[in-house]
């Protein structure tokens, strides 16, 4: 099992994601340079937070054209696990791997603080180790995290159980005051229909060690590890049973 963390010019949470996987969870991980299509045989790809290409033009708008994104697109369409965190989520939206778009935060200010998230579905490889309705305390740090999509897209997201995380109060209630950026229906994270591509605005990689304030982000990566382990198990089974 190997994780790959993509480095775009301007990524600045790449080291943090690398540390969470390699240092804290002790799983193999390597950096993937944006200018290369080689994804080095990785089993899961992380598009980290930051300001890829300075967020010029529009967040994620330039990064989606990096050579590595051709491979990420192929990898995703073949069922590979792709998680986009913050700027990574914005890039996935621009790349069309997830539906919708980001607007500037309500209030037009950069926001850095802890928020509470409710796990809306555990039927994804990114939340399968969590409980449905579990409350996660994880920080946000963004200027454009105000998720938006049209009514049809929203209906589809709802119908297909793609809304993975919502901003709530610590008790799990949906309240306007608990939605930091004005996101549509308090959406903090969504997956694609096939459930293997996931984007979230909060930073799970910042919540993996208790001395720093929270370990609630671990469940996202543990879910990925669990699901990769299971699918590796299935592959082994397939291989073993194939000749019969």
């Amino acid at each position, binding site marked *: 099992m190997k994780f790959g963390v993509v480095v775009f010019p301007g990524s600045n949470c790449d080291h943090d994601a690398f540390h969470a996987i390699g240092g804290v969870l002790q799983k193999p991980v390597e950096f993937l340079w944006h200018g290369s299509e080689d994804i080095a045989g990785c089993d899961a790809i992380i598009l980290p937070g930051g*300001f890829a290409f300075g*967020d010029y033009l529009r967040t994620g708008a330039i990064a989606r054209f990096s050579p590595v994104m051709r491979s990420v697109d192929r990898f995703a369409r073949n069922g590979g696990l792709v998680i986009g965190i913050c700027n990574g989520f914005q890039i996935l939206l621009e790349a069309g791997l997830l539906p919708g778009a980001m607007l500037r935060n309500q209030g037009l200010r950069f926001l*850095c603080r802890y928020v509470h998230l409710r796990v809306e579905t555990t039927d994804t490889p990114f939340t399968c180790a969590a409980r449905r309705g579990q409350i996660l305390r994880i920080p946000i740090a963004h200027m454009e995290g105000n998720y938006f999509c049209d009514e049809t897209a929203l209906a589809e997201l709802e119908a297909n159980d793609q809304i993975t995380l919502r901003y709530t109060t610590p008790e799990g209630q949906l309240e306007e005051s608990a939605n930091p950026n004005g996101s549509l229906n308090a959406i903090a994270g969504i997956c694609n229909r096939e459930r293997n591509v996931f984007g979230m605005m909060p930073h799970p990689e910042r919540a993996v060690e208790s001395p720093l304030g929270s370990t609630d982000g671990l469940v996202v990566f543990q879910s990925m590890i669990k699901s990769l382990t299971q699918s590796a198990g299935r592959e082994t089974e397939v291989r073993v049973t194939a000749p019969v």
Partner: protein
Amino acid sequence: MIETDTKITAELAAEHGLTAEEFTRVQKILGRDPSFTELGIFSVMWSEHCSYKSSKVHLKRLPTSGARVIQGPGENAGVVDIGDGLCAVFKIESHNHPSFVEPFQGAATGVGGILRDIFTMGARPVAVLDSLRFGPLEASGRVTEEEAARNRRILDGVIRGIAFYGNCFGVPTVGGEIQFEHCYSRNPLVNVLALGIARREELFFARAKGAGNPVIYVGAKTGRDGIHGASLLASAEFDEKSQQKRPNVQVGDPFMEKLLLEACLEAMHTGAIVAIQDMGAAGLTSSSSEMASRGGVGIEIELDLVPQRETGMTPYEIMLSESQERMLLIAERGREPEVFEIFSRWGLDAVKIGRVSEDGRLRVLQHGRTVADIPAHAIAEEGPVYRRPVAMSEKRSDSEPRMEFAPATADLNENFRKLLGSAAVASKQWVFGQYDYMVRTNTRVGPGTADAAVIRIKETKRALALSTDGNGRWCQLSARAGAMHAVAEAARNVACTGARPIAATNCLNFGNPEKPEVMRQFSDAVDGIGDACRGLGTPVTGGNVSFYNETLGQAIDPTPVLGVLGILEDAECAVGMGFQHDGDAIVLLQGFIEARAMSPEQHREFRSSEYARTIHGVVAGVPPAIDLHAEKALIDCLVALADEHALQSAHDVSDGGLAVALAECCFVSEGLSAEVNLQTDDPAEFVLFEESGARAIISVRPESLARVEQVAAQYRIEAQRIGAVTRGEFRIQVNGAPRLRGPVDSFRQIWAGSLEHSLHNG
């Protein structure tokens, strides 16, 4: 022969800010009249900002060496040993005038400039703190609505600028402080401190070496922006026409800087880099001449090769441009391709523009013609040094306003609420929440939850703590005592987190040095910092002097800002300021063993307190007396207690006194409160709100109380149990009578919402 189209006269030199004597000196060094380009070079390098000509003789009195100091003042930043082969690289710098002229870009490029100073030395920046001063945000008395509105705009622009640059670059902005005073209305202060970490053997210095080695320009292209930023903006007073100086402010691009950081660190790692310096103030001129001068060599550059943003730039403009995000480096001859490959991968211009020479001269060519030829040492090191006249004593107003204490039965709750909502005391969380203070996942203690920021060092068990402090109001009353308090408070803040203070950096913001009374303040402040840093064991490793903080002849309060760095041997021992458990004992630690009744002198001291200013409108008297032995003992005691895991929380007593400190310990806790009883012969107001130093409030588990008292006694610190942490109402009694009481939330709301309220409704 240097060709020049312009006749260089003493008048032209004067327009460039060079005095007649300075111009004569230039002629003497060159043995001829300077060319126009050379005039520009001298004027900017000999400006106050670059040459420290008025401050040099005084700065020599600061302690700059110590067991941990690897690099003191004189390089791009100070360096101290933090163990395990690592060092901390840190420095504070001002960007005051640009932030008044263009708040957003001024503050943004202030952050950018200091970050380059850090990574120039081979260190990756890991934290930024900002010490900010603004005029009042709300109209009242002599503050007009127009002025208040401008102050709000300036604050908003500065905050956005800092956030824009730091957040994108990917360095956490973890702390600092913000104060408001009328004198900063037309001269806000933006002082930025950056901290980086480097491996000791991978430190880089700005010393050119090796004749024939290539001089390589990397980063952004050179444009016409920021010309004379150092000389005209930073080294002159302001007047009504200051807005016209907007073109002198540089424009920042944090994305470019992030690329520059990664590419530079990677290039340095190859071993192909000999020396490197950022092009900050005075751009290409300072980087080339300073690297040559420090290395005892010369540098020859051809301006045609400099990447340029616009056409038709003159040598004068290219040499003086302060376009941001540029570096000059010297590489090993023959290893250029390695260097070029790295920069090209990061999408950056990297061009050989010249070479190191043996003759010690800065030689500048354009189209093959020599446009400047000056001994590098003369520009960088032989600038004028002035012993400016120093007034005999600080100006004192003869009549001090009286101030009576409230009668023993008076209700102090209303005053307390007013104090909690005052700009000085109120929470700054609204500001810190706009900064990414967590990126790089090292922020062990972030802004607002402890007295200092604590940054862990991933490779080790250790952590670093940092605090900035400075009290212009006190320095105005006594520059020497105020400066000592700035050091003491920063060191105390660091110690409250459990870290041992090891080094300091300072940013000295003063008025016009040509005025003897300003030089008096400056000289006194330097003496105060020197004494305090010696007494507390925190040598000054660098910093910056900012003079000419005057607009329309009105100087700011003298504002030395101190940044103190501390080290925690075990990051797990870090202590926050919020109470932790119901039932813990609240203990006041103070450095004075002998009981003292309020003396007439202390009554004078009280008139300089935040309470006196907010409640009585009085700014008078003197800063509290400072006892460095007591400060040092308190610091040692706090560090020892943290080391034993005996502290549940620690918070120093400063602005607003004991009452505010106790309230803050509750505000940042999770639903906890305090029940305190103070025994005293002094007036309640004095006991609750006086601001004398060497004091901290700690909370400890009841079972460790005896041990805490024992440790405190070893350090000759009085540990007085004054109350307990509760879940009830916030209550402070004086001699058994409740003087301050109410639900914590009712006080917290005022404290937490005041800043945002005055910004939006002011």
